[in-house]
């Protein structure tokens, strides 16, 4: 296998900058069309990237770092990310597909079979990014629960029970149910035994009997174990409580350090939480998230960003590091962070297609010229790309 960082791109609307839809090469009226998504994912696949993530929220997208001035100047309206991934799957063949799914109000039974099915329709390329919903607006869309006021700042208080810690504990239960349901069929449960007339060996189907504080799920899944066994579970994290979720349940966590020193510090916290969770020997990839504004020269990249900021009427702000420069300069930054211990990166293109193609046609060739990125896919499943083996089934007799 080629050494070097793993690379993913985070696809969102016309890009992460709120004015990206106004760029000359943007197609803001096609953001809800299947063709738009197929084209973007194929572009990412052409560079042999590990996977794409697809952003999602239940309600309208709100970017707290870059609030709209008028309520009408930003992209509004988006599709269910799991279905976007499924629509793209048959038209791509190697790249991982990681849609975002909100877990706070939804049913783990439904999401488990949806991601298992995404794994079937993509022949083993499915993952999911789990995300909490904490706002009163989200509560009202479902009308089922009032979670109450949630202060996200509490996520930094690792040893306190807070509404935030409760939301993440619930998410850990949710992921546990996803994983148990994926294992609730053993791989060889379908026997089609003509002699006894049995289609399945029911001793190889398992009730998961999950009982937690927030929900109980009996199982088994209605969907057989997916091709990867366990699709890849990922999450975005900015503080210790979400790091803990990833440490307990995840395969990939996206972190948001502003520089190398913060990356090193965060990595230490994640690894410590991983040890506390008893998962030292499991692979938990720690990816750095960066918003990227790219140009052929540093000056061109700055102008690209300045033009977008002008349109937005404000300088772009983010929850994570914002990189402005050339693909070669970005490669320097990524390889330095990789040397510091980050196993990969999830790049958020500021404007699509401009910054996406700068990644696939600029950054990737640059990394390859340094021997730091694969020239072609080296595995047929997402787990394989990430160096995660196909896991044993927790319910199978050894």
């Amino acid at each position, binding site marked *: 296998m080629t050494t070097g960082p793993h690379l993913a791109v985070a696809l969102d609307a016309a890009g992460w900058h709120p004015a990206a*839809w*106004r760029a000359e090469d943007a197609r*803001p*009226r096609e953001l*809800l*069309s*299947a063709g738009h998504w197929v084209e973007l994912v194929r572009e990412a696949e052409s560079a042999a990237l590990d996977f794409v993530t697809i952003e999602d929220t*239940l*309600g*309208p*997208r709100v970017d707290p770092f870059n609030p709209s001035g*008028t*309520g*009408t*100047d930003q992209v*509004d*309206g*988006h*599709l*269910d990310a*799991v*279905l*976007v991934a*499924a*629509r*793209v*799957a*048959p038209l791509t063949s190697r790249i991982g597909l990681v849609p975002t799914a909100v877990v706070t*109000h*939804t*049913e783990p*039974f439904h999401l488990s*079979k*949806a991601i298992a*099915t*995404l794994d*079937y*329709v993509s022949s083993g390329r499915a993952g999911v990014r789990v995300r909490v919903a904490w706002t009163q*607006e989200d509560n*009202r*869309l*479902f*009308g*089922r629960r009032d979670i109450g006021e949630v202060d996200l700042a509490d996520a930094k208080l690792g040893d306190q029970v807070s509404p935030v810690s409760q939301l993440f504990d619930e998410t850990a239960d949710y992921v546990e149910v996803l994983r148990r349901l994926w294992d609730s069929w053993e791989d060889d449960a379908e026997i*089609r035994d003509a002699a*006894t007339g049995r*289609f*399945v*060996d*029911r001793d190889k*189907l398992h009730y998961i009997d999950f009982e937690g504080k927030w929900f*109980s*799920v*009996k*199982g*088994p899944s*209605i*969907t*057989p174990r997916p091709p990867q066994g366990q699709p890849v579970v990922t999450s975005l994290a900015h503080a210790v409580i979400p790091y803990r979720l990833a440490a307990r349940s995840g395969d990939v966590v996206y972190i948001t350090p502003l520089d190398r020193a913060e990356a090193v510090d965060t990595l230490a916290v994640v690894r410590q939480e991983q040890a506390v969770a008893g998962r030292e020997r499991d692979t938990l990839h720690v990816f750095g998230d960066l918003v990227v504004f790219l140009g052929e020269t540093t000056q061109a990249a700055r102008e690209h960003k300045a033009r977008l900021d002008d*349109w937005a009427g404000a300088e772009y702000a983010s929850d994570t590091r914002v990189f402005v420069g050339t693909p070669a300069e970005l490669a320097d930054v990524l390889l330095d962070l990789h040397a510091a211990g980050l196993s990969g990166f999830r790049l958020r293109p500021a404007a699509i297609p401009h910054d996406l193609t700068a990644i696939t046609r600029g950054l990737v060739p640059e990394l390859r010229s340094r021997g730091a990125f694969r020239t072609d896919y080296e595995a047929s499943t997402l787990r394989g790309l990430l160096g995660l083996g196909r896991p044993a089934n927790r319910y199978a007799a050894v």
Partner: protein
Amino acid sequence: MGKPIKQVHLAAHFPGVNNTTVWSDPQAGSHIEFSSFVRLAQTAERAKFDFFFLAEGLRLREQGGQIYDLDVVGRPDTFTVLAALAAVTERLGLAGTINSTFNEPYEVARQFASLDHLSAGRAAWNVVTSWDAFTGENFRRGGFLPQEQRYERAQTFLDTALELFGSWRGDEVVADAASGVFLSDAAAGSFAHKDAHFDISGRFSVPRSPQGKPVILQAGDSDGGREFAAASADAIFSRHGTLEAGQAFYADVKGRLAKYGRRHDQLVVLPAATFVLGDTDADAQERADVVRHQQVSGQTAIKLLEQLWNADLSDHDPDGPLPTFDPVVGEHTIARGRASVRMHRDPLATAREYRALAEAKNLSIRELIIQVSGRQTFVGSAATVAARIDELVQADAADGFILVPHVTPGGLDEFADTVVPLLQERGVFRTEYSGPTLRDHLGLDGGSA
């Protein structure tokens, strides 16, 4: 002047998790690999069918306290597989069964609106209800709904989803780069809904989809189900595929439309239908008999009889006589998670009919079950079957059929290759799709025409 000639509508049902599906056939393929879904959907599209149909059950069926293992077990997530099929088909409607009891309107509306966008206007929703605590054990809610409230919840669920679909007019996204105005109306998608079941508000995150709303299908046969269909459905999926029963059902549901201010052509009646074809009618009859014996093995016959008897009959010989005792009346304890159990409304009377038939024809348990359960709707040569379908549709026993092949995934091939051309020759089935959306195919309001 005679009655105008009606056009036939046809849909393809992916073979289900019951004994209609013959998994033991040498031609039978996977029920979970995506290639099987692609194969059946592409066959249906090649034959210009209206839509592809997926059923759903949210808990594996059990009998005698154990997972039922004689039929196909396992299926994909409905939305996900339909979204993937949208990538490998261009015109075929994509219909999915989604439960209104174990879902929430906001989420389901988002998923159907997304599917309609991603398929460019081909989504359909078969609205089903359930109340059983057995299925509820897989969900946050648990089994919360009294049986008598299930259609009330289904109706309010659908009404709520329709409000969400209608919360965007369709002209709000202007995306004018020069002026920087993306949305003409900051309140687009706003909704507030409150009734006995749902109290929700906010903004719906999916702009209006190509069909405006998915085609609504309904499958319940009870009075409540028929009323629900008459009030709200675009098509009804019935089980009455014969002339007399079909006509009675057709007249009944169409007769209910007026009180909701709806026209006759706003509800398409589509009975489910199985079929066995042959070179001649006699050949088809012979094949049909073989298929019936594949569908009802000795073990399956005992299990089906247990569902009526509501008792463990595992010590009975399928090649022997019916039990000497009567069915156990009362709460069903033997079989869980399947709709057919509810069809035995008067088990004692049904058992009396079975005994009389078995005695008159000297039938074993297995042969009796083969006779009384699920005989194929259409058996004959392609010419016979095409004529029969046309006859039933022109006689207002149906507007078309949802065909249920018994072999996955190739079970529709012969029908597509032999019966469809004959229907086309008769001038009662399309040779090309007339429009891009499923509403166009079904001749419903809101199509692109």
